[in-house]
């Protein structure tokens, strides 16, 4: 039993990172195909991350600047343990859905502190946009989380997954919530209409302006974890979470595949239009869904 626990403790973050990285590879291959060109070799993200980590010289603007990526990665690894992955629900017994929303905030707080310390106005503008966007998509996210919790009358993730066993997923029971969930997770990943945070043309890659070398490598690892976390949460809440790892991976693959098509088509929102968008349509749909759940 102990070995299995140790294996899970070490294996879960690595698997999560592998899944997240595979999605980045998928994106780096599919988007060029949409633009009618071949695109980089499949394992290009691995080359990028390793090249960044093996840079000979690294700069840092201070302790907090270096601590930022470390806290971000630590926060993401922490969140991985609280989301049931396939058959394993590791620690998700000890923190329920509401606590999970706050645990996922540790990573963004770490990155925000690190980027703030880089003494560059582009980074500060990037962070203020990131936090405003987070404030934007948190409203519909909270409404659908409450509606799912009320629908199953529990907030612990393993019970929600158990309730969705053999086929009756939440997506069929609460279709509106699933739609809003998709939009929210899509925005949280910073895909195209919402990539205001790292808009290369306006704010020179936002918070990552002064990051280079192994700091940027850590941030890319954190981005891979972030993709895994958001989509795993969506799959666990709405698509039944998968009994074994393969089924879990297939569901996540399908969800991310759809997102890539949205990503390569849309122009970019202005930040306050993005917040207005989130507080108008997804919020209204989510409220309608909430009333349905309350009335039922």
């Amino acid at each position: 039993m102990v070995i299995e626990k140790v294996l899970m403790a070490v294996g879960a973050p690595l698997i999560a990172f592998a899944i997240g990285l595979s999605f980045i590879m998928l994106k780096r291959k599919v988007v060029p195909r949409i633009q009618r060109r071949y695109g980089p070799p499949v394992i290009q993200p691995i080359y990028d991350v390793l090249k960044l980590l093996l840079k000979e010289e690294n700069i840092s603007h201070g302790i907090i600047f270096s601590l930022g990526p470390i806290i971000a990665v630590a926060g993401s690894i922490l969140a991985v343990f609280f989301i049931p992955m396939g058959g394993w629900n590791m620690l998700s017994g000890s923190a329920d859905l509401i606590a999970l929303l706050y645990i996922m905030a540790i990573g963004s707080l770490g990155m925000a502190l690190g980027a703030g310390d880089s003494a560059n106005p582009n980074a500060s503008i990037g962070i203020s946009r990131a936090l405003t966007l987070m404030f934007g998509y948190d409203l519909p996210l909270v409404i659908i989380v409450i509606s799912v919790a009320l629908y199953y009358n529990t907030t612990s993730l393993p019970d929600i997954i158990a309730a969705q066993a053999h086929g009756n997923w939440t997506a069929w029971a609460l279709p509106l919530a699933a739609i809003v969930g998709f939009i929210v997770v899509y925005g949280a990943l910073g895909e195209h209409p919402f990539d205001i945070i790292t808009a290369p043309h306006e704010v020179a890659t936002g918070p990552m302006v002064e990051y280079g070398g192994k700091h940027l490598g850590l941030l890319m690892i954190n981005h891979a974890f972030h993709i895994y976390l958001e989509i795993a949460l969506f799959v666990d809440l709405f698509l039944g979470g998968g009994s074994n790892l393969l089924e879990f991976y297939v569901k996540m693959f399908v969800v991310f595949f759809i997102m890539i098509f949205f990503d390569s088509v849309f122009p970019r929102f202005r930040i306050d239009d993005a917040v207005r968008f989130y507080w108008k349509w997804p919020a209204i749909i989510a409220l309608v869904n909430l009333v349905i759940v309350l009335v039922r």
Partner: protein
Amino acid sequence: MEKMTEEQVRTIANMLRKRSLWMIHYCTGCGAMELPPTMTSRYDMERFGMSPYVTPRQCDILLVTGYLNVKTLRRLITVYEQMLDPKYVIGFGSCTLNGGVYWDSYAVIKRLDRYIPVDVYIAGCMPRPEAVMSAFKHLMELIDSGKANGYKLYKKNLAYYKENQRKVLG
């Protein structure tokens, strides 16, 4: 044993750096127009793992695309020094080689490599994308064979470069 692993790490590192070159193109002159064709579907340099990035901290190659007058040289040196260590410079076109058509102009510098070390030059008064692609290929071979060490040159005889820069910038 220690020496051998050091050697192995360097070869692996060179292999990785060859395959994922991030590029900042400092559009000083008319060469910047040659890069969009190399990036888009016709020539697609992303096949070699190269993609354009925005800030010097994140990038490996500095593309000097065209003539450099004295004012932009001052900015270019700041960008060059902000880049992190295994960095390479590619000089586009004859203006970086010997001043090109501006050979007698009082404002344009004549030889780029007196001010910052240049790894690869591309001849031609704005080389076509095929020439640019071959330059990238050549740079990759240099990196793989470990000969592309312009940045070490810059560190070694910094005084020489600084003196030249001061002579021009004043």
